[in-house]
């Protein structure tokens, strides 16, 4: 009975939502900006084969990229864990690969791989690998010290530690990473299609945007968002099926911070990146007209005759983009952590809020961009909001997982003393959430940069995004590679700042995270 009433209530809610949406669509500019559900269903009915073929192609590429990227992340996490000396280098290189701006890598991948699905798959893989690697590394360390001491007292090494304790402890974090990756893979595949793919949802998006076919455009967005949502839920369901244990008590002695080797680590990473950059160009034999090495970029920015103009253009664009990315990043983090706390306090709101949150992130930024710009204006607010939306989602997912990791025994203890949900939250859950929040904060540095450059490229035509698109279309490859180098360098530096902050906070609240 009660189940029936709830279903009826839900259906009524959906019906009201659909009617309101249809009316809003009609009211605003006679349906030329927002498509209502009627128009979208009409479009789907007109040529379902076209929509399904495009969906299958994009999803196929996204899935291939998702699998490749996550496999790479798991392998890298294993390597980083078994050889701790390599961890900084591995995460550093993964970060660099994640920071490479799509706008610049897309055309280069297309030239390297020729016609076909190559660039779409690679961009999807690049978009997911890092967001799996980082939570996974966090999870590998989220282990009670006593268990490790037990293993060590039997004289067993890191391999046994990894296989028997840490791999299992890392599972919830792996699932969090996979969930975050699902929408990112779809977006990566769609943006990859912009480099000259024959078919897919991204191709249709461009077509319908030009043709002013608003119902079709929204139909495509809905398909992409629906597919991302389905993947997100499927991974969530699998996680619930697999994870049956309650989180264990995490108590570890505070560790002294290891400061030595930070500078050496940074230098090693820089050297490795330069070596890969130079070696990659040599190996692929890319034409020097298109391919610029580290030396070319340095020359272009420092001693070439037009170096002053290059620097002025690049840093001007950088200032513009940073002014939008930083506030959006902070707002997204605050909103994500805030909502996660709220949802844990009011678990009933979860089923209502989560789909909206996932959909916001899953609807391709390509189609939400113009809409948000319409509502918030072409000024800074629109772009900042879009950046915040992109940062918000991974933060929310990570923080929800983190809050769930609160040690059950301590919660029981608080409950015995009649402590309410709020004081449980403040004293137990929020400290337990901190590692996840910081993992999200680090992951979100490149996400914020990706968001701001994509919006600038597709919607507002300013800043670094526009500069890179223009450089690519006018064959100014010195500028393009300089922009890539600068963006990547800055992302890595910002990441280092967040990581430094993280060490300070975690040393107090989650010392097991710092255990080597």
């Amino acid at each position, binding site marked *: 009975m009660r189940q029936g009433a709830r279903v009826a209530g839900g259906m009524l809610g959906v019906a009201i939502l659909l009617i309101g949406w249809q009316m809003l669509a009609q009211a605003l*500019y006679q349906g*030329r*900006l927002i498509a209502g559900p009627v128009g979208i269903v009409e479009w789907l009915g007109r040529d379902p084969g*076209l929509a399904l073929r*495009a969906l299958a192609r994009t999803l196929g590429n996204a899935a*291939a990229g998702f699998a490749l990227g996550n496999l790479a992340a798991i392998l890298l996490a294993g390597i980083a864990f078994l050889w701790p000396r390599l961890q900084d280098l591995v995460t550093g290189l993964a970060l660099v690969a994640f920071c490479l701006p*799509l706008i610049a890598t897309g*055309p*280069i991948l*297309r*030239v*390297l*791989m*020729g*016609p*076909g*699905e*190559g660039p779409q798959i690679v961009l999807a893989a690049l978009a997911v690998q890092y967001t799996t690697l980082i939570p996974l590394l966090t999870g590998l360390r989220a282990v009670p010290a006593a268990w490790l001491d037990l293993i060590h007292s039997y004289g067993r090494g890191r391999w046994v530690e990894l296989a028997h304790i840490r791999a299992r402890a890392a599972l919830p974090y792996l699932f969090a990473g996979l969930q975050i990756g699902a929408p990112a893979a779809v977006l990566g595949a769609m*943006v990859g*299609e*912009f*480099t*000259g*793919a*024959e*078919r897919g949802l991204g*191709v*249709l998006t*461009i*077509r319908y*945007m*030009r*043709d*002013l076919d608003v119902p079709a455009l929204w139909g495509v967005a809905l398909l992409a968002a629906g597919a991302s949502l389905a993947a997100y839920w499927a991974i969530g369901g699998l996680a619930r099926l697999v994870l049956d244990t309650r989180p264990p008590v995490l108590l570890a002695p505070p560790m002294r911070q290891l400061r030595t080797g930070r500078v050496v680590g940074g230098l090693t990473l820089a050297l490795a990146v330069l070596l890969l950059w130079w070696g990659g160009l*040599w190996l*692929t*034999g*890319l*034409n020097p*007209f*298109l391919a610029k090495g580290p030396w070319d970029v340095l020359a272009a920015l420092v001693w070439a005759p037009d170096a002053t103009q290059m620097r002025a253009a690049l840093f001007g664009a950088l200032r513009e983009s940073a002014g939008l990315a930083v506030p959006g990043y902070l707002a997204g983090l605050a909103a994500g952590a805030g909502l996660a706390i709220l949802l844990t306090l009011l678990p009933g709101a979860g089923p209502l809020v989560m789909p909206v949150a996932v959909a916001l992130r899953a609807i391709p930024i390509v189609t939400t*961009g*113009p809409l948000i710009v*319409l509502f918030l204006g*072409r000024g800074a607010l629109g772009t900042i909001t879009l950046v915040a939306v992109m940062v918000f989602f991974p933060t929310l997912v990570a923080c929800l997982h983190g809050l769930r990791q609160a040690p059950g025994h301590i919660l029981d203890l608080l409950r015995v003393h009649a402590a309410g949900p709020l004081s449980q939250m403040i004293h137990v859950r929020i400290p337990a959430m901190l590692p996840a929040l910081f993992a999200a904060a680090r992951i979100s540095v490149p996400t914020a940069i990706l968001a701001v450059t994509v919006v600038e490229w*597709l*919607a*507002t*035509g*300013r800043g670094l995004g*526009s500069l890179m*698109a*223009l450089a*690519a*279309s*006018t*064959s*100014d*490859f*010195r500028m393009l590679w300089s922009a890539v180098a600068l963006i990547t360098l800055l992302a890595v530096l910002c990441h280092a700042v967040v990581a430094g902050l993280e060490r300070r906070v975690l040393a107090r609240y989650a010392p097991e995270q710092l255990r080597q």
Partner: protein
Amino acid sequence: MTAGMTRRGLVAGGMAGLAMGGLGLPRRAVANTPVGFQLSWLHSVQFAGSYIALDKGWWREAGLDVTLMQGGPNAPVEPPVVAGTALVGISAADYTASAVAQGAKFKIIGVAMQKNPFVIASLPDNPVKTPADLPGKRIGMAIANTPVLRALCSLNNVDFDAITIVPTQYSAQPLIAHEVDCLLCWETDLPVAMAVNGIESVTMLMADHGYSVHSQTYIATEDSLASRRKELVGLMSGEVRGWQDYRADTAAATDLTLRMFPDAGLDRKTQLLQAERQVPLMFSTLTDAHGFGWWDEESVSANIETLALLGYKVTPDLWDRSILDEIHAG
């Protein structure tokens, strides 16, 4: 060089193998020379002449196995042509000039759009009919096109600073929503989309006001011009024939396009109108006299002048008519 070719061949071959294996695409066994042809945008009637050449088998008869490589918003044309993935690309005089300034050795070997397709589109209640109407207006465009607007202003003695540039995405929406008074766009896309959606618009073709930049130009490298002439002649001769057929029946060309690319999401009404509207840009008394793709010295000097306003210094050497000469001689 040999080592470079081998490395490149290995990597490209491996990747192509992966792509093919993954897709299970059937590969036709042909003895013809494989040739890549990089288009500048998504498949549409914009390239219908090429589709006719492919469909009628004219390239196959010339010993070529042509792959049409679709373009897109993030698919620059020049890199694949430089890299050799494509023998010919569809560029425009300003993009080619920019690439040449960066060290690429390109020549323009054919001009599909004699008149540049850039227009200022506005709504009839607040129209822009001549450049003199521009001051005081808000124009929606990509910031990257600022030099284009500046050039138009200086060609027509219009005060550039009196125009407000609003950076927008490439869509008619900002105009319909009255966020801007006019748009910088192509005659053959956004105004067509508006017309199909029942929105009347006024377009001012910039080419009618001194903006002379050859568009949809065929480019090839100097290397190819020296060593792959036969293929270039075969490709371009198919283009010339294809576009002549296109002009004779744009509706048939549209239907062929729709048939060849069922997954491209093309709308027949939109494509028909676009096909009609690009005819006056591609064909003139000059092409009537000399054939499709032709240009004369007068238009080259006008191009050099406009390109200088855009910040590109070029000489008549950028254009090379030897391929067209060979086609029309033989």
